[in-house]
């Protein structure tokens, strides 16, 4: 994690980033020291993202909270990395939406659909529903096979949310680290580790 903290700070030095990003970079740097347990760390980010530091530009606070909940359901924290909220995916989506009425409509419409549907199913809006109620609905709308009939708008919206949350996560420093990308650096000699060659050949039709 240490190079992520470093990247965050060097970003700030480009003057293009706000106090919010500086605070996020600081939070990442704290995380980099590895002293916070994962769940606590995730909570720090949830609070920072949802309650404190980020003021949504396109979405209402309620819509933004719903998007954030959805984002961490799509790309949650696991043993390798933190989740989509910590990576700033909802803020990125909100930023793009603030520049596009078409995109804003997709999110406001989709989130309203989630709320209406959840109220019908569980008597509360999406973000207030219990985790198992949330996942029960996602288990339906996360698949094209349910894409006809009354779930169709939800399936269509979830495709948008999934690809954009995934994009927001993997284009962040956290996502880059999660994938194990080790490039974008200067090396004097290009070499391929024998371990990687052996691994691929062993598993390939060519054998060793």
């Amino acid at each position: 994690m240490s190079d992520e903290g470093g990247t965050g700070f060097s970003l700030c030095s480009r003057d293009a980033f706000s106090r919010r990003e500086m605070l996020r970079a600081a939070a990442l740097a704290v995380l980099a020291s590895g002293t916070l347990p994962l769940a606590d760390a995730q909570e720090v980010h949830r609070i920072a993202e949802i309650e404190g530091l980020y003021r949504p530009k396109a979405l209402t606070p309620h819509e933004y909270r719903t998007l954030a909940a959805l984002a961490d359901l799509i790309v949650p924290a696991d043993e390798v990395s933190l989740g989509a909220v910590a990576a700033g995916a909802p803020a990125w989506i909100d930023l793009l939406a603030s520049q596009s009425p078409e995109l804003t409509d997709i999110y406001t419409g989709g989130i309203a659909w989630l709320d209406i549907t959840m109220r019908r199913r569980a008597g509360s809006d999406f973000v207030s529903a219990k985790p198992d109620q949330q996942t029960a609905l996602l288990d339906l709308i996360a698949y094209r096979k349910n894409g006809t009939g009354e779930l169709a708008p939800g399936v269509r919206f979830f495709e948008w949310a999934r690809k954009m949350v995934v994009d927001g996560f993997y284009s962040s420093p956290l996502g880059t680290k999660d994938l194990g990308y080790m490039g974008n650096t200067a090396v004097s000699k290009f070499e391929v580790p024998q371990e990687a060659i052996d691994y691929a050949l062993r598993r390939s039709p060519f054998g060793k």
Partner: protein
Amino acid sequence: MTQVLTELGIQVTLLEAGPMLNPSKDFKEHWWPYQTPDRGMGPGGSRYFGKSPYPFGLYDAGFGDWQLEGEPYTVAPGDKFVWYRSRIVGGRTNHYGRISLRFADYDFAPYTRDGVGTDWPITYDELAPYYDKTESFIGVTGSKEGIRSAPDGVFQPCPPPRVHEMLVQRACKQLNIPCIPSRLAVITQPTHGRPACHYCAQCNRGCVSASNYSSSQVQIFPAMKTGRVTLIANAMARELITDSSGKVVAVSYIDKITRTEKQIKCRAAVVACGACESSRLLLNSKSSRFPDGLANGSGQIGRNLTDSVGYSLSARIPALEGLPRHNSDGMGGMHVYVPWWLWEKKDLGFPRGYHIEVGGGFGMPGPGQFHGLCARHEGYGKELKTYLRSQYGTSVGLAGRGEHVPNPKTYCEIDPEVVDKFGIPVLRFHFQWTDNELKQARHMHETFTAILETMGGVITRPAPKSVEGDGISIGGEIIHELGTVRMGNDPRTSALNKYCQAHEVKNLFVADAAPFVSNPDKNPTLTINALAWRTAEYLAEEMRKGNV
């Protein structure tokens, strides 16, 4: 051209239609997606709606687009053509793929060989010394292979194949297809004061250390240091002015900053605006002596337009799932490629051939890369996250670049009704693939399928059935458009002689890919350079003798 002329002591004024290039400011070589607010999806996420402000990805150094504001082109009804233009010092060489392949001996005599197309007025042996000079000067990787379709040159060592490239090589070996070290204009050894490649894979973003070739950094900037170059930026050439003897005496250009017309006198004019733009300038340079455009007595200017045939196919390779992580960046492009290997076969059903480019590895993560996997896998949560991690770096892509034979339905001309924002008449394109190209694309599909399946990949896409929208590239899309001011020995069928000098105008030369007589399955830039070098020496000698 500029570099050779200035070395020979000649004063050169360069007219550039775009701004000056400042690599340290303009090149964003090592930037991450998150250093731009939209991260590459465009303001408002425009790429999600099919519109990208970054046609070749965020930070690409093409500094151009398929459409330039206020500088339109038109396409004849029913035809499809796209035209990528860069307006900046160095133009498209700032971002291109750096693939540097010599034409084969037989590429210079296509008509003699199979009765299709037209022979060049020069042979491989005449151009070979200039290939040598060019490769020595700009630096090209490669290995001596002794393959007739891919003549050996002056090479620097190519870095070793990446893991997926090793699998491609194994598959090719089983299929009896050659797969050899890449020939890229990237230096792997210090060359003429330029440091060796640092292997960050971002060649298309422009190289801050000038370790790949671009005409701006490798030729123009060093030539400027001789003191013999005057560079006029933001100068859109409009017309070449001739005197009563038919010689070019001046270039009229629009100063884009002030939108005023200016003229600069010249002893000789070298046109190198990119093939189509060069033909546009000549066609727009009309006079009573040259009513159909300057040096266009043959009527050939604008004709014989070709692009490369493009087809690509990719597959997930299960052997690469969970591959131990390592830095696989390397040079900005493949480390191995497949030269055309069936040049002796006469029964393919189509003339000429193609080469194969290889893509894959652990690329810099960015938005968009997992759209296909998300759609395929569906679901969400930890399981999706684990799946995406396992699939990262498993995609291997093959892209074919084949020869397009000139045909009478493919050309550009001046659109009589449309001018650009400077009042300059624009080009109208006509473009048709023929059965030759479609059959070639099908052959590519079969070959790529065989290679990817041999590696363990699964191909579900069917072979292209028809030209329209079925996999074969759109005309112009491969950005190898050329041939529109072709050279030849006969002034009735060509605009330029064998030195790229206009048959009708002795002090007019063309030094881009417009003089090409055919468009072999080799990317044009290396041959543009070799030909321009030869033209520059000839021009300097003719000036010395007082003939120009």
